[in-house]
């Protein structure tokens, strides 16, 4: 009996899954709750915000009319299917919550599969009493726990708007999360590197977003084939709070089943650590000759990716500018919020200013990631042999910092060019609007340098700083956060361009502050022990 079970695969393949699942949840005890919590909060705060913006039936009717006629806005957020607060919430943030759930799903799955194999940790795990399918199963179950929790939070939190719709929205969003978790499970079998697996899965997610956007700009009811091809389109076609079409849930379910099966089949056909897309050999001799060249080689891919992303985002936002001005022109509250975010001149200017500000906030994430490369190099032990050569610490750090601070300027310039291309006018002012964000971005970079130099163990707290600034910038204006709190963010002190007047005072002060932070951080780096 036992022998038979082993021979035919049987349950032995899953031995140890429970232990591994508990272990994975323990390792993710911070990431999953925080990510899921923020995602849920974003959705749950929407009914209140929307009530303020579209309080009267007339305003909602105006919004729906606008969405029916405006294809570029539909491309951004999708069509509206109903005028209840629940339906508007699903319309406004459903797709984005789905994207967030998908990113968490792919991060969790890759982290517990390919990452483990690449680092060699999996070898030790697999040598224990662990079935051949246990690790993949545990990773998928971890993603299922995260998405299940999200669905529960959303169902409970939105119950006030109607339980049925709340459940549909929660299930739809969690479904998107699981679809991409299983996509990641497949990709993790294909690539040898976890980073590549994450990148490829994210590219699939990006493609899904583009498909849905294209489909939604073509039709106003989500009926385009392109929309139906995208898992994000399934979410909107489920129509939470607007006559739920339950059968649509069969699509993510079938997709999870199919992709999961494929992942198991692929996993069963390869050896541990191996992949279906093998690594190509590199050159036998190298041309890298300095710490700066090494830093560029390590970061150029990242700079390229961020640059392309920022340019495309700029083009998309720029293209939307006129239609958004039309849309919010009808709505007093929306106009007030946009004006508060972006200054009080014409709505087009206000929209451009708020988009430039948003891109600036995202650029803060770039600069933190780029500066923290120093931290990664140091803690991984790769910095030690480099610094044992004739390379001073300052030169080593400078190589990465030039890319971090210069790269931030480059991606903001590209964003500005994109905005100008998409908008088709005002090239100079639009570029200025993007570049004026830089001093604030640099301050965030300076804080990161300071943390790395003075408190290397707390260097990753820079992510918290960037996250807090991002939250203040995005949610602060809509939530009537007191000015004193908004002033804590360097972005709050920037002039609102285009439309506002250029204020050199704060720009100069922030730049000087950033320089001082960098200098202090580098002084600390020069004096302290290298972490090993």
């Amino acid at each position, binding site marked *: 009996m036992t022998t038979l079970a082993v021979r035919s695969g049987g349950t032995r393949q899953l031995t140890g899954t429970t232990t591994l699942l508990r272990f994975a949840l323990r390792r993710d005890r911070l990431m999953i709750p925080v990510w899921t919590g923020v995602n849920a909060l974003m959705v749950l705060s929407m009914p209140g915000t929307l009530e303020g913006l579209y309080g009267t039936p007339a305003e909602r009717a105006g919004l729906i009319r606008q969405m029916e006629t405006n294809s570029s806005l539909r491309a951004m957020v999708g069509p509206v299917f109903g005028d209840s607060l629940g339906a508007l919430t699903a319309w406004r943030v459903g797709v984005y919550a789905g994207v967030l759930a998908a990113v968490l799903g792919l991060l969790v799955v890759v982290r517990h599969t390919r990452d483990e194999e*690449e680092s060699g940790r999996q070898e030790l795990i697999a040598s224990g009493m662990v079935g051949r399918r246990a690790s993949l199963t545990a990773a998928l179950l971890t993603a299922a726990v995260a998405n299940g929790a999200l669905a529960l939070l959303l169902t409970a939190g939105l119950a006030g708007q109607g339980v049925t719709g709340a459940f549909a929205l929660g299930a739809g969003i969690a479904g998107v999360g699981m679809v991409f978790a299983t996509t990641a499970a497949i990709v993790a079998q294909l690539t040898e590197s976890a980073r590549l697996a994450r990148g490829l899965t994210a590219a699939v997610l990006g493609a899904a977003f583009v498909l849905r956007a294209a489909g939604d700009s073509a039709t106003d009811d989500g009926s385009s084939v392109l929309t139906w091809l995208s898992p994000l389109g399934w979410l909107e076609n489920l129509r939470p709070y607007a006559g739920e079409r339950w059968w649509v849930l069969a699509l993510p379910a079938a997709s999870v089943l199919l992709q999961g099966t494929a992942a198991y089949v692929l996993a069963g056909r390869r050896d541990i650590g191996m992949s279906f897309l093998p690594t190509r050999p590199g050159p036998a001799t190298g041309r890298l000759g*300095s710490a700066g060249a090494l830093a560029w080689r390590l970061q150029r891919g990242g700079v390229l990716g961020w640059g392309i992303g920022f340019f495309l985002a700029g083009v998309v936002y720029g293209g939307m500018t006129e239609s958004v001005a039309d849309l919010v022109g009808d709505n007093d509250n929306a106009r007030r919020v946009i004006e508060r975010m972006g200054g009080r001149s014409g709505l087009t200017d206000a929209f451009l200013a708020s988009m430039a500000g948003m891109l600036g906030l995202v650029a803060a994430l770039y600069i933190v990631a780029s500066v923290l490369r120093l931290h990664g190099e140091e803690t991984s032990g*790769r910095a030690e*042999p480099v610094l044992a050569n*004739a390379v001073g610490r300052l030169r080593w750090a400078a190589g990465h910092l030039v890319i971090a601070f210069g790269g931030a300027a480059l991606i903001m310039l590209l964003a500005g060019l994109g905005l100008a291309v998409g908008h088709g006018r005002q090239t100079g002012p639009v570029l200025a609007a993007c570049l004026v964000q830089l001093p604030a971005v640099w301050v965030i970079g300076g804080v990161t340098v300071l943390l790395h130099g003075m408190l290397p163990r707390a260097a990753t707290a820079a992510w918290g700083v960037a996250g807090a600034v991002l939250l203040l910038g995005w949610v602060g204006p809509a939530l009537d956060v007191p000015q004193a709190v908004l002033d804590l963010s360097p972005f709050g002190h920037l002039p609102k361009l285009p439309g506002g007047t250029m204020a050199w005072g704060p720009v100069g002060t922030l730049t000087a502050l950033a320089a001082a932070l960098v200098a202090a951080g580098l002084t600390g780096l020069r004096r302290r022990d290298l972490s090993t």
Partner: protein
Amino acid sequence: MTKAITVSGLHKSFGRTHALDGLDLEVASGEVHGFLGPNGAGKSTAIRVLLGLLRADSGAARVLGRDPWSDAVEVHRRIAYVPGDVTLWRNLSGGEVIDLYGRLRGGLDPRRRAELVERFELDPTKKGRTYSKGNRQKVALVAAFASDVDLLILDEPTSGLDPLMEEVFQRCVAEERDRGRTVLLSSHILSEVEELCDRVSIIRKGRTVESGSLADLRHLTRTSVVAELAGPPNGLAGLPGVHDLDVRGRRVRLQVDTDRLDGVLRSLTASGVRSLTSTPPTLEELFLRHYQDEAAVR
């Protein structure tokens, strides 16, 4: 003879842990110096101080006549370092890393590089993430041996190498010595140390407990003697430095402090010697004595 490395009274603490507790070390120019001690004795900490990666709390250190902390870059121009656990960039090939390290030092001899790649049987086109542990070590070793430097600092450099490669490594170190370069070799492989090192320093709990040539150190330990005598042994038990005496008829086994060997031999020849085996102390015994001392102290 000039000194490549001089260290005296070096202290370094991490919180409450005293990693270095008054370490002394002298490495003469042109010698291969073995740096030994049990795990956690402070060898890697000492090496990181010598590389200016850590700052000593107190004490003096000079490397190639300069301060390793304040003149780090100048010192490093003439140093090649191989850590015990080499981490590579996942997407750079081994060849790229070798050339990068060479350029970041005093330069690289391309002919020697090619020769070393061949001798170590390294495939320089593989990407960092695909190398095994031993092959990652080879990348750092080739970079170090091909570099044009005066001092090599090797921290357990052969972990993960197979015995054939271990031999290649030993020949490379010998060649470096023949060229007049100085080598500081931290190692647990005693045969390697015995084969290569002119002098050794043994450290324990962050302090130097023994330093000198292998011949010197051997004198500090015991030689074992087994002899078949013509007549009954006489007065062996009373001789100074004799331990574990075991007499069975005319067969004698004993341990003797190596510097007291002379007296024992006199006494044996007085009785007439039929056969004699004298085993010099092995390095293992030497180290075990020091390592076990530590266990005893605990």
